[in-house]
């Protein structure tokens, strides 16, 4: 959910919309914001599942320290989505376990 109106910060500033793809589904994002913010705004809260027990995880620190928010971004696993800005056409996948690196050619 977006904070559209704020008593101190005022209305949400206008920004360009960029589209990203999460597990094959297109969602809108505000240009320049971190991936995690766009996902939470779209109601997505499970970012990855753990290696051994397959437990769900989502953002915990939001400042790039804890690595609970990592996902596979454009084929690269373990990207910290809370400190990585969105880009038009970015492909994001819920990460299972440690993720898989793209095949080496």
């Amino acid at each position, binding site marked *: *959910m977006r*904070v559209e109106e704020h008593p101190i910060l005022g209305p949400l500033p206008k920004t360009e919309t960029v589209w990203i793809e999460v597990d094959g589904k297109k969602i809108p994002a505000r240009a320049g914001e971190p991936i995690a913010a766009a996902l939470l705004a779209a109601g997505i809260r*499970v970012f990855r599942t753990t290696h051994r027990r397959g437990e*769900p995880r*989502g953002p915990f620190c939001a400042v790039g*320290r804890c690595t609970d928010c990592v996902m596979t971004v454009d084929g690269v696993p373990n990207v910290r989505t809370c400190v990585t800005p969105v880009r038009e056409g970015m492909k994001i996948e819920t990460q299972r376990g440690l993720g898989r690196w793209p095949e080496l050619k």
Partner: protein
Amino acid sequence: MAGAEVTEVAVVGGGPAGLSAALAARQAGAKVIVVDENAAPGGQLRKQIHKFFGSKEHHAGRRGFRIAEELVAACREQGVELWTDTLAYGIFDHTLGIVRGGTASTLAARSIVLATGASENALAFPGCTLPGVMGAGAAQTFINLHRVLPGRRALIVGAGNVGLIITYQLLQAGAEVLGVVEAAPRIGGYAVHAAKIRRAGVPIYTRHTVLNAAGHGELEEVTIAALDENGWPIAGSERTFAIDLLCLAVGLTPLTELAWQAGCLFEYCGPLGGHVPLHSEDMETTVPGLFVAGDMAGVEEASTALEEGRLAGLAAAAYAGYRSPNLEEEKAAARERLQALRSGPFGEGRYLAHEEIVRRWLKWRDAR
């Protein structure tokens, strides 16, 4: 690896401590570079939309993010170089290993100020890893910086200033807050903050703790319970809340990796949040030419971070060969202001703790 850079004073961290250090060192005449991993400098202040406490000299009544804007503007005006999107990952003698805009390189300096801040503590209970359980500072980052609510119905753990302020800021952002849970018998934060959230109808459950969090794939409910005199949950006092956000405001720990790596001597100090590097009255560590300031030298407040930053900046510049003409007076004035900030029931513990850290530093120096 890109080309190595050289400066006179390097500052790691662009929060109030780092910016204040940079400004003081620059005013003394040194060439200064500040590195910060974020897209914009300002540190914690960027998220603080409430009015600050303290005296006028310490920006009382001003909102944190405005103070950050002013500090950044002053630094730019004075010619401090601010390198954003730059992470310092290591320190080797007087050289920092950095990753700037995704490219690795080095930054060598005559003296270095570490002002890396602190990180939020976690709390362990069944279900604490469910999506929807997060640090209070994380929730604050999402609502105030990124303008997105990480949940609609929240419960806060910890009634210190951070917990109380975030409760209020969640309400401002449009969330519902069902309560604040505090294990201690009394509220730790300022009475003004507590009164504000009580007026908004948010109950504060003192002598209570979180028993567990539960949900299918993500947070759906949290159960709390009252504690007896020995800190054990009282059977029958459990209460369950249907919520989708649980914010943990249970303290901060100084971010000291670089100081450990540099070989600084440390001391464990509960009132300052954990292990802190021994330092002198001038904020110099046990590694010559390496200075510390702000939350990483002991978790306190933005106001104290500014003064410590000033001391560290003046001393770092002097070490690099730039003695401010009124060095001793300026240092004495900053120390006096620090002492004033560390008085009263909230500050005294921190005052004594810092005194002890300085005493240990002196002991180390005298034994050399």
